[in-house]
């Protein structure tokens, strides 16, 4: 990205860590005012804020002291970090991320072993009460030995790090709802961050992985307003998780017309018809995939021909087969019905026979009343 000399004094600041405002840091990296304002406008529109808020966002971000961020990774696959780094050089999203003071991140930090842990402890001490704690991955409760970092169990590290956090951002479905480690039969006793931490504000940013701009959008909101965004009933920012994939899907008209792909290679699939019959979870999934899309707005799973898996919803892994339509039973009902018909027919025959026996018996014991009887 070229440096915009007219709007940038070009004064370099020191690297990407340490003190200094975000504005200084961005300028030092050659981000033009135009690019920066564009980012602010995008962020405002993503968060459904009025255009009048754009200067406020810009001002807040410009002057925000780069907050210390501690990123903990527990039982996870690093997909969330991979997703975030896909917004790499030199997008504004990645610069924003570089421009916070990322003091601890297993995957991205150069330090290892005791030095790494010392960095975390130092950051926690220096910024006690003010740092942001980002967590990806679930926490095993069955046996602390299932997942440890530098000999510290995930549970201990989370509770210790959460103490001085201003807010916690749980990134990815594992940290937000337990995710795949939590899936039946949950061999490690995996739980989410909110299952352990009860006294802190937690923002859930689910997805397997979450969309990069959603992660940076949540960070931007925090930097701008110093508060957590409006959340839904399961802790997700409404700005990004307020609408279902189905309601914003570009294939929705095909659903309404009753035009469906029946298989992955039929005429319907080639014509880009609705994937509901192939198991799409769009109708029950709240996420921003259909609007912000992935890979710098290139596409999202449904656009590339695969049904939505519903990865931003709790227990999505156990929600029935991925390729069975949402309205279909998850178990074999036909077999149940056939066995029940057979059993009930036998039972019905027995009950019917008993009824007949009762009827003929009452006929037998019936005593007729004659006129003479009545005259008595």
């Amino acid at each position, binding site marked *: 990205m070229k440096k915009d000399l007219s709007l940038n004094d070009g004064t370099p600041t020191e690297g990407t860590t340490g003190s200094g405002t975000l504005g200084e840091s961005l300028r030092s990296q050659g981000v033009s005012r135009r690019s920066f304002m564009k980012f602010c406008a995008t962020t405002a529109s993503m968060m459904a804020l009025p255009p009048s808020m754009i200067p406020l966002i810009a001002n807040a971000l410009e002057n925000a002291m780069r907050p210390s961020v501690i990123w903990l990774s527990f039982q996870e696959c690093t997909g969330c970090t991979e997703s975030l780094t896909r917004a790499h050089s030199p997008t504004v999203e990645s610069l924003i991320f570089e421009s916070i003071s990322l003091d601890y991140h297993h995957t991205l930090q150069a330090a290892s072993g005791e030095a790494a842990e010392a960095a975390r402890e130092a950051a926690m001490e220096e910024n006690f009460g003010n740092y942001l704690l980002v967590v990806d991955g679930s926490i095993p409760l069955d046996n602390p030995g299932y997942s440890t970092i530098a000999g510290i169990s995930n549970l201990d590290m989370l509770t210790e790090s959460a103490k001085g956090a201003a807010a916690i951002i749980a990134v990815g479905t594992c940290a937000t709802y337990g995710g795949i480690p939590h899936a039946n039969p949950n061999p490690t006793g995996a739980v989410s961050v909110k299952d352990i931490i009860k006294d802190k504000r937690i923002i859930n940013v689910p997805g397997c992985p979450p969309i990069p701009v959603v992660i940076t959008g949540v960070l931007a909101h925090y930097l701008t307003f110093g508060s957590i965004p409006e959340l839904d009933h399961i802790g997700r920012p409404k700005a990004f998780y307020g609408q279902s994939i189905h309601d914003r899907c570009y294939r929705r008209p095909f659903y309404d017309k009753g035009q469906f792909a029946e298989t992955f290679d039929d005429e319907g699939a080639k014509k880009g018809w609705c994937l509901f019959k192939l198991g799409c979870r769009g109708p029950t999934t709240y996420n921003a995939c259909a609007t912000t899309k992935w890979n710098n707005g290139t596409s999202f799973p449904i656009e590339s021909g695969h049904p939505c898996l519903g990865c931003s919803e709790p227990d999505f892994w156990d929600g029935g087969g991925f390729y069975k339509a949402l309205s279909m039973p998850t178990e074999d009902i036909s077999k149940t019905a056939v066995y029940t018909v057979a059993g009930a*027919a036998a039972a019905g025959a027995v009950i019917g026979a008993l009824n007949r026996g009762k009827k003929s018996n009452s006929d037998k014991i019936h005593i007729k009343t004659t006129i003479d009887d009545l005259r008595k």
Partner: protein
Amino acid sequence: MTEIELLSWARGPGLQIATVIFVAGVVIRIFEIFMLGRKANLAEAKGGEMSGGLKTMITRTIPDRTTFKRSSVTIVSGYIFHIGLFIVCFLSAPHILFLKDIIGFGWPSLPTPVIDAFAVVTIIAMLATLVNRLTNKVMRYLTNFEDLLTWFITFLPLVTGYLAFHRIGMTAPTLLAVHILSVELLLIIFPFTKLMHAFTLFIARWYNGAISGYRGVAS
């Protein structure tokens, strides 16, 4: 229990329980009815049982003029909501998929806006039947708890389905779970209430017609 867990329960174990009760209840009741049998009619046949029975199955389906004048609201709203229920239940794409998974075959569906319109008309017609039942003195006198219960349990899947489609009031997984659970409730009470008429209606009509047919009189 999370929303998705509730939905999974409704689509799995919940549906299994409802299916067993529904199927077993209906089959046993039909067996009981048929096995009661009929006394041999010793009178000489003046006509055919089968032709009389089949004819009455059709004639009783069409209201005669006097009956229509007397209970026009019941008949019109009744017809509308029965036809509407049939269309909404059996011609909507997700419902056809549900049935296809159980019975092994499907059929073409109607577009969503058409189903949506029929759902609204059916809901209005069902409300009309309720208002008529409660405002008409004779109807109110004849109404018992079962009538209101069956009305409510039939009305519930319609409303929850409408809300689920439009995602009103709750989140989509909860709405879908509630809709499926309301259908399961309907299946469970079905064999034990007058909802059984869906199966016994034409048997009863045929029987009435067959008696008249045997006697050689009009039914």
